[in-house]
């Protein structure tokens, strides 16, 4: 047997790629979870095509799942892969540029044949040469299909069923490559297939055979080992996707405040998982109405809010556009409402499965009239829990619609999530009308915070008429009076601006004494932090100001930004936040770094760009 060495790495990126039907998402999820159980930091990102089942073996049907493991804090699913597992030639073609020098490609050699090359659109029968794959990359051919068939020959399954298990063979192989005992993977499979013993035994058998296949590979190869992370705060963890975390944040808020949770929504990529997650939570009393359209999604939620529920609607960019008028109603009626926009590539239908931050100005300004609403953005998948909770809290305490921006990248991606308890979450105190209030008017508000008092049907003595027409400040009756309208416009604005007194101040990460301040917002936090940390390790001085609260901005924003000489705003759009900041901090010259490709930043490109700014 040739010598097998074991290399210790601080962090490693593995990408699984195959046909949409090859089970790559499951393989990737199992691998990342079992690594997390062994103490690694994890971050994952699935990348799937918009077609549900494109023809097998074609480039259009390639679906991927990337996992980043680390022995220290990691912030992103990683840029290029150390190890790429491809189930067919099409997957190789799609991912060939995403492998690091010195990396490894494992491929199903059974499908690397003439017909496979043709389906993937290769012109020759040597795809590696055709793609110009660096000879520093080690190729590991593994006959996944035939080995899986061999493994399951005694099970009496149809060939189609047998081949569905070949993802487990690749998982076994990768477990070997990373020195991961497969017991934990078997435990996961027991949970998944517990009710179908045949499938469970088959998957465990293939997994084990895949592991042993690696063990018996007679070639010189370095296996990897990623040490436990010691930077992760102690506690119980799970891995969670941003969309699930968002749904759970709403559930936690509803339970904390003791209100019923209502979601009105219409299916739209990449936000639908939020609705799925909430629809499954009947046990928590969550009411989900899958409405006839986006407008009914939000307006039924406004109805539920009017009737005293914590109400939310979930959508993506095109849906937010349809909801504009209704958000204006929630602004005018001063009702609590959480609007979640999982941003995707636009305009119009755009790039439904890809990520962008191009809805910011729509969220801030996309309504008729002077129509201020709270706008927030979550930074990481696990962050979505916190910000969905906070969006609910702000909506209920300040009687306003809150738009929470997440995106396809953090919505579908996963990260470690330290399990919270309800008790440790902050209190939520809605601005209910005080018992005993006499002669209540719909327009009654706390004169200091400008927050309207909330009463709803079922509460005796507080009957009122609300609506989208302008109201008299004092009586709540409809009014077209000129002075009154000005007063109401100013009041609604003041109410929103006042929220800056209740949100955390902007904090600086990285080197506070920096020569360069990097500004970001929302789902780019991981990539920006990685780039900033990397430069600081190399002796540069770079700081990061990452925004989660956008309207209103944290109250120290101007002071913080003005204390840096050079400021660059990085975002996945053509400069929307930079435009917004220029209107708020006119004295500062904001440089921009923008990308609108439907893809997240890479830490590498950011680092390179910041390095040029530091020169």
């Amino acid at each position, binding site marked *: 047997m040739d010598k097998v060495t074991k290399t210790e790495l601080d962090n490693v990126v593995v990408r699984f790629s195959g046909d949409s039907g090859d089970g790559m998402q499951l393989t990737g999820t199992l691998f990342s979870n079992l690594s997390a159980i062994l103490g690694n930091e994890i971050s994952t990102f699935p990348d799937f095509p918009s077609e549900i089942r494109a023809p097998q073996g074609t480039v259009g049907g390639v679906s991927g799942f990337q996992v980043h493991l680390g022995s220290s804090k990691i912030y992103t699913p990683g840029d290029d892969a150390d190890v790429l597992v491809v189930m067919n030639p099409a997957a190789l073609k799609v991912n060939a540029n995403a492998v690091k020098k010195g990396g490894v490609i494992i491929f199903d050699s059974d499908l690397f044949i003439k017909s496979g090359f043709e389906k993937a659109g290769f012109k020759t029968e040597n795809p590696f040469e055709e793609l110009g794959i660096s000879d520093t990359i080690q190729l590991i051919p593994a006959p996944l299909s035939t080995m899986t068939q061999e493994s399951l020959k005694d099970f009496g399954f149809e060939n189609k069923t047998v081949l569905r298990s070949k993802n487990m063979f690749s998982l076994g192989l990768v477990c070997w490559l990373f020195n991961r005992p497969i017991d934990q993977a078997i435990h996961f499979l027991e949970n998944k297939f517990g009710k179908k013993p045949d499938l469970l035994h088959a998957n465990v058998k293939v997994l084990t055979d895949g592991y042993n296949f690696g063990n018996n590979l007679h070639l010189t190869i370095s296996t990897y080992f990623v040490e436990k992370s010691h930077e992760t705060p102690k506690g119980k963890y*799970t891995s969670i996707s941003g969309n699930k975390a968002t749904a759970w944040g709403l559930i936690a808020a509803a339970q904390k405040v003791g209100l019923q949770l209502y979601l009105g929504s219409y299916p739209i990529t990449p936000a639908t998982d939020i609705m799925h997650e909430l629809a499954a939570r009947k046990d928590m009393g969550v009411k989900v109405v899958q409405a006839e359209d986006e407008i009914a999604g939000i307006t039924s939620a406004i109805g539920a809010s009017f009737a005293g529920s914590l109400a939310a609607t979930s959508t993506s960019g095109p849906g937010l556009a349809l909801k504009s008028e209704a958000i204006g109603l929630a602004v005018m009626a001063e009702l609590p409402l959480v609007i979640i926009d999982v941003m995707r590539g636009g305009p119009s239908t755009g790039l439904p499965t890809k990520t962008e931050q191009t809805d910011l100005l729509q969220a801030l300004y996309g309504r008729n009239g002077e129509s201020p609403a709270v706008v927030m953005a979550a930074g990481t998948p696990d962050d979505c829990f916190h910000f969905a909770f906070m969006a609910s809290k702000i909506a209920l305490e300040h009687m306003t619609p809150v738009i929470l921006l997440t995106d396809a990248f953090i919505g579908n991606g996963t990260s470690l999530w330290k399990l919270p308890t309800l008790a440790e979450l902050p209190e939520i105190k809605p601005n209910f009308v005080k018992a005993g209030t006499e002669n209540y008017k719909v327009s009654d508000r706390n004169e200091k915070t400008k927050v309207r008092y909330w009463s709803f049907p079922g509460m005796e003595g507080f009957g009122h008429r609300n609506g989208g027409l302008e109201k008299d400040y004092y009586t709540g009756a409809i009014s077209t009076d000129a002075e009154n309208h000005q007063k109401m416009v100013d009041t609604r604005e003041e109410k929103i601006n006042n929220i800056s007194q209740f949100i955390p101040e902007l904090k600086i990460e990285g080197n506070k004494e920096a020569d360069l301040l990097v500004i970001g917002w929302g789902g780019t936090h991981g990539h920006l932090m990685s780039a900033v940390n990397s430069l600081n390790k190399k002796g540069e001085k770079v700081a990061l100001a990452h925004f989660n609260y956008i309207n209103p901005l944290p109250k120290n924003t101007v002071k913080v930004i003005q204390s840096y000489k050079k400021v660059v705003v990085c975002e996945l759009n053509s400069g929307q936040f930079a435009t917004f900041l220029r209107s708020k901090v006119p004295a500062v010259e904001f440089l921009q770094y923008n990308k609108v490709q439907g893809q997240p930043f890479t830490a590498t490109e950011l680092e390179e760009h910041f390095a040029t700014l530091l020169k």
Partner: protein
Amino acid sequence: METTATIQYTAKDFKSDQYVRWCPGCGDYAVLSSLQKVMADLGVAPHETAVISGIGCSSRLPYYTSSYGFHTIHGRGGAIATGVKVANPKLTVWQITGDGDCLAIGGNHFIHSVRRNVDMNVLLFNNQIYGLTKGQYSPTTKKGFVTKSSPFGTVERPFRPAELTFGARGTFFGRLLDVDLKTAQMTMMAAAKHKGTSVVECLVNCVIFNDGAHGWLAEKEFRGDRAIALEHGKPMIFGKELNKGLVLDGFNLKVVTIGENGITEDDILIHDATTADTTLQMKLAMMEGPEMPIALGVIRDVEEETYDAAVEAQIAQVQAKSKIKTFDDLVATCEQWEM
């Protein structure tokens, strides 16, 4: 509800302090006062009653009742009322809408709230014109009618609300005429008592832009002969002299005179609003003058599970079985590990 049901309300209890701003002579006044009377007779407290509307002349109605009211945005009243009722099924929910609000911009919400059978009462004010925007044709305006946006007559085929309601699998359809208070109140009361989406087409006059919209029917002198007030279980008899009736002639309805050609009261059809089959109800709803009388009253009133009740039932069913009671229980279901 039980504590309030014993209180006797009067129409005054449902009047707000707001000045009613419809044009003098508008048909909406009569419907409003009928509604306030019905709300009082129904015995549901004002604070347990929610009146939701969209945009248009009739959609101003919530301001004039003392209950909880919400005057929302154009066309969306049906969806908003759905949210109100699903959020709190104990409420009595009225949706006030017009032919433009309900059947043009709000058409989608209308058919879907009817399809879901949300337990709410929809008063569809049909004056066959857009009043608040000053006189354009609506989806129910008769073909050829001259309006500001159809100076040469409309070239559009109108909707008939009954047909749309039946097509959306509606469980209740009634019709009233603004000036016929007795039938109006009877129909509204039946709508309120019906569990499910009750659609009541309110034939109202617009004195400014479509005066005499339902004039043929509204003329008091002839109304007895031109309208038939349908009641479940009663023979379909009408006419000033109460000597006319409806019978089946092949697949069609026909007007006959009792006492002529050997026709007796026993030959007249008995109205069945509760049968699931819509065939005869549809024929009744679609009758048009001058050959046939216009049907008023309760045309269809069928029991089916309501959406809001089904939502509650499913939650109760899942909760009875699930071990997850709290957020902490939910978190405990995660695949989890110590780090």
